[in-house]
Each structure stands twice: as C-alpha cells, then as structure tokens.
C-alpha cells in the first residue's frame, strides 16, 4: 500500500469513527455499535470507501484484541487467577463444551459430517471478548456477578483457542487449501512433537523473560526518563510477543495475555497500562469497524432466511446454554440475563478459526463465507441486544420491586441517596443507619439489591447515572447524594446528570486517587474523598508509634499531614492547565516528584510550639 492510499484509508476510518461514535453514544447505543455502524457505512456495500471487505484491516485491527488481552493480563496477577479457577474452569469449561456439543449436534442433524460439525461447534462456541469486556466496562458492570462470570467464561474461551488450533488439523476431511500462511512460520515442516516442544519453549520463554529480561529492561528505559521510549518499549513487548506467537503458530492474544499476567506484579504495571491503553482503544475501534465493513451484504441478500436463521439459531443456543450455566452457578435472574444475552454472540476468534479451517481443509470455503457473515452479524447485533435487554427485559426482572415502588412513593423520601453499595458505600450506609439516618440506595448488582431489600433497605436497581432512576430514588427531594460507585467514568457521568437535572443536591464523591480527585475537582466537586488517604495515614501513624513515637504525636502528625495534603492538592489542581490535563494521566511520576519536592519546601509540618516553653 503506498503512502497516499494509506493516509487516505486512515482519513476515512478516523473520520467515520469521529462522526459515528459520538452519535451512537448520544443515542445511547454505546461505542461498540458506533464503530460497527461506521464500518458498515464506509464498507464496500454502502459508501464503498474501503475496497476489499476489510481483510487487510482486519489483520491489523486484530492487534487491538491482542493489546486488550495484554491489559487484561496486567490486571490479573496469578493469585487472582488462582482464586477464580473454579469459575474459569467450571463455567468456562461447561460453556465451551455444551455450546460446541449443541451447535455441533444441530449441524450433524442438518447433514454435515461430524468432523466439520465439531469444528463448527467449537468455532461458534466462542464469544467476543472485545465487545463484551468493552461493554461491561462502559456500563460499570465488571464487578457484578454477571461481569465476573462473563469475564471468567471469556478468559477460558481465549485460552481454549490454542488447543482448538492444535486440534483442527485432525478434523480435516478436505484437501488442504494452498496459500495459508502456515509456510511463513518457523515451525512449518517440523514434526508434530517438535512443534509441541517449540510451543512449550516459547511459553516458557515469555514467562522467564517477563521476570528476568523485561523488568530489567524497563528499569533501564525508565532511568533514561524519555517518556515515549517507555511507550515504545511497551509496544515492543506486545508486538514482539505477538510475532513470536505467530511464528510458532499460537494465538498472539494468548501470548500477550500471559506476558501481562507475568508483569501484573511489577512496579511498571500502571505505566504500562496507561501507555498501551490509547493504542488498544483505537485499534479495538478499528477492529469493530473492520467487522462492520466485512459484513458481506451480497451473501445476506442471496440467502436472507438462511443467514437470519443461522444467526438467531446460534445465538439462541448459546444464550440458553449460558443461561443454564448461570442458573447452575446461582446467578440472580437479571444478572443471568445480562450474562446469557451478553455473551451470546460469536467472537473475533471465530474469524481466525474459520480461516484456519479453510486452510486445513476442515470446512469448505462456501460454508466459511456464510459463517463469516453470521459471526459478523451476531457481533453487530450484540449491542442492540444489550439495549433491548436493558430497556425491556431487565426492568421487568430487576425491579420485582415495581409494585413496591408505587407503595414507596407514599412514604417520606429519604434525605440521603447513596449510589453504589460495595464495601465503600455500605460502610457509609451502615454508619448513617446506626445513627438513625436512613438513606436510599442505588446499585447495579442485583444480588446485592435483593439482599438489601430483604433486610429492609430502600434500594433501587440500576445505573445510577440515569436521570429517571435518580428521580425514582427521590433525587428531587433529597438533600445529599453520596457517590460511592467504583467506576471513575460513571462517577463523572453521574455528576454531569445531577448538575443538569438536580442542581440542588449536594454531592459527596468518592475518588480513587489524586488523578481521580483532580478530575472531580475540575468537574466542580467540593467534597472529594480519596479512598486511600485516611487509611494510608493511619498506617503511617501506627508505623510512627511502633517506632517509638508517642501515639498522640503520631496522631497529630497524621492529621497535620492530611490537612497539608488536602491543601496541596487544591493548589496543584488549580495549577493544572485543562488542555494539558487531558493527556496527563501519565504524568504520575513527575507529579510525585513535584509533590515530594513540595513536601520538602513546606514541610515544617511539626508546628507545635505552644506546649514547649514550660518544659524547655
């Protein structure tokens, strides 16, 4: 591709994204659907700006998925993975096996050979990590029952792709098609056991180098103090692992996931996250657009009923299987709905498996062409299904309280609303209740909502940033709104809603850390509570006392530091230039430096002179 056309392509993709995504967001459709629509729009069947149905771009865009898995890996250290082993292996394993069996069985019934049917079942059993995780995060559902279960299943599926890739060649019934990229890999031509050895060696290489090579490398790079160098090395790692994995015929996504897990405990985790994040977002967007662009409308027009039948059939089977598993693992009805419907689409790895099946002669080109369209369509309608679920189904299930609500309307409204009833919010709620102050609660975790309702709390289920929900919870009459939800974006969203519709409400906002607090202060919040500062200072004060300081002295030192730190934060927040601020999530280190320097300058924190004279 020459430079001119590359730039032109970039122009089209970026323009489409910039136009469609805000529009979709505005309509409440979520960014994934926005990207998909943008893809359809510029694709060969509407405006025709991109020539071939997306294949080139697809390869490039799949890299977004690779990066996403790297980031997911970073979030999980091995201990967390081990904790989740039951739900990963149990739910994930059951889901893949049952879905593959059901879909494969149906395929055999419709007259396919068992080998092809099995491959088909396995391919379609996978869900879209990209879409589901992006959506769960956007909706702030990651910590709910549905979010956790969904994540476990997706993780298992992503891992399951490897054995599938190894297994598919054994299912071949057709001659291998030429032109597969297999010849490019270094393992081409090796015997089967040699191949396995190479695979194991590369996995080991990733783990070992993660520990003994990458961390020292970061140390050197960090010392150079050139920011873009750090970004470059972060990209280098991801790309390097992806190349290595492709060379040995493994999924690059899995390799980077592994690398992420290895680096999860390292001191560079946050730096890596913030460096890779924008690339991931952009490439994922590109990936969704490529999916949109690759929907072959000709095939749809030729066999509309078949395609529709396949899409509905596959998704229905998957949703039923997922729902059964959710029930088995005791998800609440509405959590189960989110879980089952959310994961019912076929995922991006299906594209990989389908093209691999053609190469290896497992499925015929005609079948995979149709299936590619089916997969793309199922991904495309996922955001719509989420929407339907949210607007039509969930209100019916989640608010078994609908009748209760009308009763509650006669009650006196509470003066305090607490949004988010996790560990943070429930401590506040318990404290207020212990002092006779009754609050109204909003939460997205229906299991928690059920429990609280049973215990006589007044709880509303749903997304606390929605105006109608706030209104139902009595935001018009309430005096205080305590925003204790976990997701930083949701908090900001909620603040905007409240400022617009309920300007009289005084807001007390939880914030995770300084950056978060700056965002909230810039959003006009006066009462911002960093969740870590008090605890950290208590630890500091206890540490002083264990070192022999008097308890009262340590206590006052902590109180003084707190007062000083709050003031310093206000000053620093005011200094920040809002333009500069947009791209300073990464300025952590410099800011720490600034802070510590300020500590030295201001730090005659010990200002007790009142008592001393008598004893001197």
């Amino acid at each position: 591709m020459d430079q001119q056309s590359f730039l032109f392509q970039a122009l089209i993709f970026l323009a489409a994204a910039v136009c469609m995504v805000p529009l979709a967001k505005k309509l409440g459709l979520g960014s994934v659907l926005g990207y998909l629509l943008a893809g359809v729009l510029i694709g060969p069947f509407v405006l025709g700006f991109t020539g071939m149905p997306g294949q080139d771009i697809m390869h490039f865009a799949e890299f977004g998925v690779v990066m996403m898995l790297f980031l997911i890996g970073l979030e999980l250290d091995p201990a967390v993975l081990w904790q989740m082993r039951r739900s990963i292996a149990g739910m994930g394993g059951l889901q893949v096996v049952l879905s593959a069996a059901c879909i494969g069985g149906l395929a055999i019934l419709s007259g396919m050979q068992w080998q092809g049917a099995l491959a088909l079942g396995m391919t379609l059993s996978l869900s879209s990590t990209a879409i589901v995780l992006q959506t769960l995060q956007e909706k702030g559902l990651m910590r709910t029952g549905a979010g956790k279960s969904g994540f476990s299943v997706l993780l298992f599926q992503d891992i399951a792709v490897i054995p599938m890739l190894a297994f598919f060649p054994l299912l071949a019934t057709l001659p291998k098609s030429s032109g597969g990229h297999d010849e490019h890999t270094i393992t081409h031509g090796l015997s089967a056991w040699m191949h396995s050895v190479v695979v194991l060696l590369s996995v080991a290489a990733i783990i070992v180098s993660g520990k003994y090579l990458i961390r020292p490398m970061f140390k050197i790079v960090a010392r150079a103090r050139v920011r873009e160098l750090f970004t470059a090395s972060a990209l280098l790692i991801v790309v390097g692992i992806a190349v290595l994995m492709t060379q040995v015929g493994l999924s690059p996504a899995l390799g980077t996931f592994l690398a992420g897990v290895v680096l999860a405990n390292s001191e560079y985790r946050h730096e890596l996250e913030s460096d890779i994040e924008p690339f991931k977002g952009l490439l994922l967007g590109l990936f969704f657009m490529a999916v949109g662009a690759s929907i072959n409308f000709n095939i749809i027009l030729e066999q509309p009923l078949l395609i529709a039948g396949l899409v509905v059939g596959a998704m229905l089977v998957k949703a039923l299987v997922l729902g059964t598993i959710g029930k088995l693992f005791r998800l609440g009805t509405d959590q189960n709905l989110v879980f089952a419907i959310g994961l019912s689409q076929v995922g991006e790895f299906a594209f990989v498996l389908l093209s691999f099946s053609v190469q290896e002669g497992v499925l015929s080109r005609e079948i995979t062409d149709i299936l590619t369209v089916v997969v793309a369509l199922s991904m495309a309608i996922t955001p719509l299904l989420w929407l339907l679920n949210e607007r039509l189904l969930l209100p019916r299930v989640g608010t078994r309280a609908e009748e209760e609500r009308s009763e509650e309307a006669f009650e006196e409204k509470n003066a305090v609303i607490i949004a988010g009833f996790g560990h943070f919010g429930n401590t506040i709620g318990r404290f207020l209740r212990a002092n006779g102050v009754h609050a109204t609660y909003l939460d997205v975790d229906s299991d928690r909502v059920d429990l609280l309702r049973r215990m006589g709390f007044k709880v509303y289920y749903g997304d606390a940033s929605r105006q109608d929900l706030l209104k139902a919870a009595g935001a018009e009459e309430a005096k205080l709104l305590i925003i204790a939800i976990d997701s930083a974006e949701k908090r900001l969203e909620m603040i905007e809603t409240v400022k617009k519709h309920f300007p009289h409400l005084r807001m007390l906002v939880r914030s995770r850390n300084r950056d978060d607090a700056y965002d909230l202060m810039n959003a006009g919040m006066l009462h911002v509570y960093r969740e870590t500062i008090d605890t950290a200072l208590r630890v500091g004060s206890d540490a002083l006392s264990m070192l022999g300081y008097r308890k009262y002295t340590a206590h006052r030192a902590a109180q003084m530091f707190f007062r000083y730190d709050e003031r310093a934060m206000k000053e620093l927040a005011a200094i920040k230039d809002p333009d500069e601020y947009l791209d300073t999530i990464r300025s952590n280190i410099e800011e720490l430096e600034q802070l510590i320097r300020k500590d030295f300058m201001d730090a005659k924190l010990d200002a007790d002179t009142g008592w001393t004279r008598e004893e001197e």
Partner: protein
Amino acid sequence: MNAPQKILVLLAHPVLERSRIHSRLINHVQHLEGLTVHDLYEKYPDFNVDVKAEQKLLLDHDIIIWQHPFYWYSAPPLLKQWLDLVLTHGWAYGKGGDMLKGKAVMNAISCGGSENAYREEGRNRFTVRELLAPFDQTAYLCGMKYLPPFVIHDTYKLQQADMDMYAIQYEQVLTALLWNRAQEAEYAALKTLNELCPIPKNLQQ
C-alpha cells in the same frame, strides 16, 4: 498493714517525649507496688475516652492522682475531656452517684513560674491552691477527699540534680500515701504534699 493502698496516676501530657519533669517523675515511681500509671495521651490520641473502662479503673483504686503540667492554670485538654466524660451524673455525683465516695484525689503538677509568682502580689495573682479550686470542688462534689497538691515550680530553671531530687521526693510522697504513713490532720496542715518529705535546705540550689 500488709497490703498497700492502690494509687492510680492519671498522666496527661501531650508531648511527654519533650518533657523533662514528668517523664522523670513517672520513671521513678512506676515500679512502686500498688501504683498504676495510666498514660491518657498514649491511650486516647483521638480523645475518644472509653468511659466504662475508665470508671472500672477508678473503682479499682483508692487514691487518684491527676499528674499534668499546669498549662494556663489548668490541665491539658485531654484531662478535662476525661473529667467531662468519666465523672458522670448518677455515677460519680448527683442522685445515686456515690461510686467514688471516700476515695482520695490530688493533683501533681509542674509550673513554669516560681512559688513567689503565685500569690496575691505576684504575677499570677492567685496561689496554686486557689487556682486548683475547680479540681478541689470536683472532688468535693464526688464525695472524695481532696489532698494538697504535689507542686514543682520553676521547671525551666531546674538543673538535672534538682529534677532528680524532685523525683525522689515524689517517690517518697507516694510511698507514704501507699502505706498510709501520714495522718489526716497532717494533710490539713500542709500547703503542698512536698512538705511531707522536704528536700534538705542545704541540698537546694
């Protein structure tokens, strides 16, 4: 008498680590049999006094000593907090409030000013005894016997030897209290408890 009286020293010093007098006094007496040192600022750095526990401690002792620097003619705030919260109506005073009845109580204080400053013509216009009236009256209301105070003057002029001698004096006074060696009538005649065991004149500075 075989068993000593029980003495509770309620120490209230916000910066004991910088104190010269009080840490010395405490170090010197804390080993005495029958004596409990209760360091209020160490126990309640957040001023959240545990009333029940404090009341139990009072019941377990016969003589209470409020030991503190004489900040602004009174005690540091945590001791006031302690008084406000622990000496409750119906327990320490008022109807049915006789739990402390018959116990003895006193102040052990350090003052920056000289003894001369604490008289009508002096800089502080009142005697130490007069300024301690609120403590005296508190004791009276609770049916406790208010003993003369143990007082150390001129604290920031004292040399090490003086402070050490005061510490020994404090130990002697507390020992006398523990073993009931002084008579009721004697207390009444004393201005301060220091006079019970005076430091020989020729040893003073």
